[in-house]
């Protein structure tokens, strides 16, 4: 088993001549919750999509558990995209069945328990749900897998503070032991206390890679305050 769950070597991705990721070198250990923090357009989603195997690098290399993203790594990676990819006409129950068919590490009982606790019926269709409820359903699906790497792209984006708390609590109480969770967001104050490590990304480069408590001890300020300083407009 490779020691690092994610490794990038001189990783670059360009869209039509513009570099979204600018020759990134990065190694992420197992067993941590990591915040991928940066302003809009800094390369957060591009990095996550490369790790999820949805994009291919322009140059350089990205490895998940020591392997190039592909069929095998997709079995190890549980990915929550920024935008919903689920069909609106499906019901919660149908989606649970679909995940059960797709992923051998999916725990349908756990997913159903979490849906029950939120009062979501198996028969409820996605299109009848509010935005917040839809986000919660998708997170429940993603966190009900026993993956080695969870890639969560803006999981608390468009939801209210109470729903944010629910989502973060669901993440910390459900991720598989020794697995790593990457959470991309710009809502740093909300995620700060669940993070082990903060990665600041700017213009396609990782500019800070540090343990959250180290930042607080060395800088005497929160990650949120440091972020505001580093990315001051």
């Amino acid at each position, binding site marked *: 088993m490779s020691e690092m769950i994610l490794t990038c070597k001189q990783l670059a991705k360009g869209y039509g001549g513009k570099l979204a990721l600018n020759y990134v070198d990065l190694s992420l250990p197992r067993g941590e*919750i990591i915040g991928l923090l940066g302003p809009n357009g800094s390369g957060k989603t591009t990095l996550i999509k490369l790790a999820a195997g949805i994009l291919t690098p322009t140059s350089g290399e990205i490895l998940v558990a020591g392997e190039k993203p592909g069929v095998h790594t997709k079995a190890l990676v549980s990915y929550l995209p920024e935008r919903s990819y689920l069909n609106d006409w499906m019901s919660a129950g149908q989606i649970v069945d679909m995940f059960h068919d797709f992923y051998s590490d999916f725990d349908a009982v756990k997913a159903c328990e979490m849906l029950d606790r939120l009062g979501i019926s198996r028969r409820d269709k996605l299109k009848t749900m509010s935005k917040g409820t839809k986000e919660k359903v998708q997170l429940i699906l993603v966190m009900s897998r026993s993956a080695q790497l969870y890639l969560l792209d803006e999981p608390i984006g468009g939801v209210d503070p109470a729903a944010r708390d629910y989502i973060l609590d669901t993440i*910390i*109480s459900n991720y598989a032991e020794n697995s790593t969770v990457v959470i991309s967001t710009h809502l740093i104050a909300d995620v700060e*206390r669940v993070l082990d490590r903060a990665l600041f990304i700017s213009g396609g480069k990782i500019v800070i890679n540090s343990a959250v*408590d180290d930042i607080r*001890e060395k800088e005497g300020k*929160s990650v949120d305050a440091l972020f505001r300083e580093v990315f001051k407009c």
Partner: protein
Amino acid sequence: MTWQFSEDRAIYTQIAEQVKLRIIAGIYPVGTRLPSVRELAAEASVNPNTMQRALADLEREGLLYSERTSGRYVTEDCEKIRQIRHGLAQSVAKEFFFRMEQLGYTRPQALKLAEETEEQGNE
């Protein structure tokens, strides 16, 4: 008692302080088993590794001890808990005098005011 964290200090040190207070207050009584790291982390909405680090610190201080299979327990050493309580009380007292001094009070004046305030509160 709810978990509250300030912005400017490491979270694990703040967790350790608050667990300490809970032991002193008897919320986690002498010799009893603590909830698991995951349970405590979920309750405080913090990362399980951070909670683990804070509990390991308290273990080094001798306030907690681990049984390999059954979990983490509060020490049975009441004297130890008394000592730590005393240490915390001393720092609260020092802080009080320091702040009163900033307001221009001498020690006797500060003590007198504390007593008067307490009496008024009891009326």
